[in-house]
């Protein structure tokens, strides 16, 4: 099993938008569940400071990439649920292409570095 590594702050910040959008593309969700899903998907490597998710969500909401709605949770208190919008899906697709380019490029050079 991999040891936990410290991810660079910039990388965490840059990956936040596509990650959140992708998780919301799976289905509507709320803050705490999104954080849990991130931890699950990354095998615990991507550890966000919990609070920091919320400014990200609010920014996406302002940009119109997600929409939010307050509705009752299973425990009676209300909770803010987020849903990806059409613009959000388009943005997700664009980000995905960008990340694939980065990923592909890095893969190419790493093969060479490793085999050299």
């Amino acid at each position, binding site marked *: 099993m991999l040891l936990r590594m410290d991810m660079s702050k910039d990388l965490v910040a840059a990956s936040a938008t596509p990650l959140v959008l992708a998780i919301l593309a799976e289905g509507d969700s*709320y*803050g*705490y569940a999104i*954080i849990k899903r991130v931890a699950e998907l990354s095998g615990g490597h991507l550890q966000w*400071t*919990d*609070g*920091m998710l*919320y*400014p990200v969500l*609010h*920014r996406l909401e*302002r940009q119109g990439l997600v929409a939010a709605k*307050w509705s009752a*949770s299973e*425990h009676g*208190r*209300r*909770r*803010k649920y987020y849903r990806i919008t059409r613009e959000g899906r388009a943005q997700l697709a664009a980000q995905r292409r960008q990340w694939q380019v980065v990923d592909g490029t890095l893969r190419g050079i790493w093969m060479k570095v490793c085999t050299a």
Partner: protein
Amino acid sequence: MTTFFDRPLEEQIAQWRAYVRRRQALHDLDVEELEGHLRDQLVELTKAGLAGDEAFLVAVKRMGSLDALSREFARVHSERLWKQLVVAPGAPDESANTARAETLVVLSLAVAAALAIKAPALFGLRLGDGNEPFYVRNASLFVFPLLTVYFLWKRRAGIVSGLWLALPFAAGAVFANVFPFRASGDTWVLTALHLPIALWLAVGFAYVRGRWFAGAGRMDFVRFSGELVIYYALIALGGGVLTGFAMMMFKAIGINAEWLAQGWLIPCGAMGAVIIGSWLVEAKQSVIENMAPVLTRLFTPLFTVLLLVFLATMAWTGRPINVKRDVLIGFDLLLVLVVGLVLYAASARDPQAPPDFFDGLQLLLVVSALVVDGVALAAITARISEFGFTPNRVAALGENLILLVNLAWSAWLYVRCLRQRGSFAVLERWQIAYLPVYSIWAALVVVVFPPAFGYR
């Protein structure tokens, strides 16, 4: 999210919530969202076997630094750092219902004030047509009683105190209208100028709920007055723009809207704006920085420099003050301004704080104003026999004297404070104790001057 049956845990959450709420960049809804997160986390941690307070520590730690969080929130919602004046619903301690009632009361009073100024027209005293002296003399009587009603309503004062406060207004109405003023004379102008100052004290009594001598009410009334002047000036600016557009647009279709502007927009707006401005000042007290002390800080050094340069120029060139008709009134206004600067500096000062550079500057301002006024007075008294005593001149001299006494004693108190022999609380007390003097003198001018000078 869940409510916990663990009492201490709920208390800890409540404390955390109160702490987070103090952040300006975080609104109540955001705090609710974050609290939901905290509670979800707590449920999971306690399920995993942590005790309540342990779980709380871990959950708060995972939430991360609140400073960083509110910085991020401020970046997303930058408009939140600009304090917004939302009139309804008001302070958290008052319900939306009272806020709505207040809005209704204020709007009715503003409309009443706007209609009041049009009421004399029903009795044949139309605005214009040479009735200006009547309107100018009575200007404050159209709106100050309504403003008083607003404060009586807002402070939930009884009917009895309301009836007492009706007396000064009734007296004002009598003295403004029973005298046979000569249209070409000066005494009706003096009445018009002094009646508002006299009646403002009655408004003040309603503002402090009749307890003029108790507590900090009077200083609050001074602050209120300063802010009202600033708000009124801003509303008047907006009103000017509105009037200008009305004239321009109707002119474009060949209709002269002058009667609309001069007969309705300007007089009704000027009256209604007093009520609306007061309401805004009342509503914003804690929301927006007080402007009057800021302007005081800004202009005290500038006026000090002006006075010193003026004195130096006079000493250097040896030019005497050219005593003309309005010179005395000009220097009166200068003293009024300096008293205002001292008053508003005192209103914003923490009386317990030790003297600083700004207090020294204030003293310099007061002393140089005293010297300038002394020079002007010397020049005027030297030639007063030439002019004779007109009502204007006697009123101006009286005011000069009143302001001089205030400033001279203030200067003395400043010296004591700067030498750490007295406290600034004394200076503040002196300034607010002096307030009724202005109104009493103004009342004297209104009551005594017209008959004493034969309604000239």
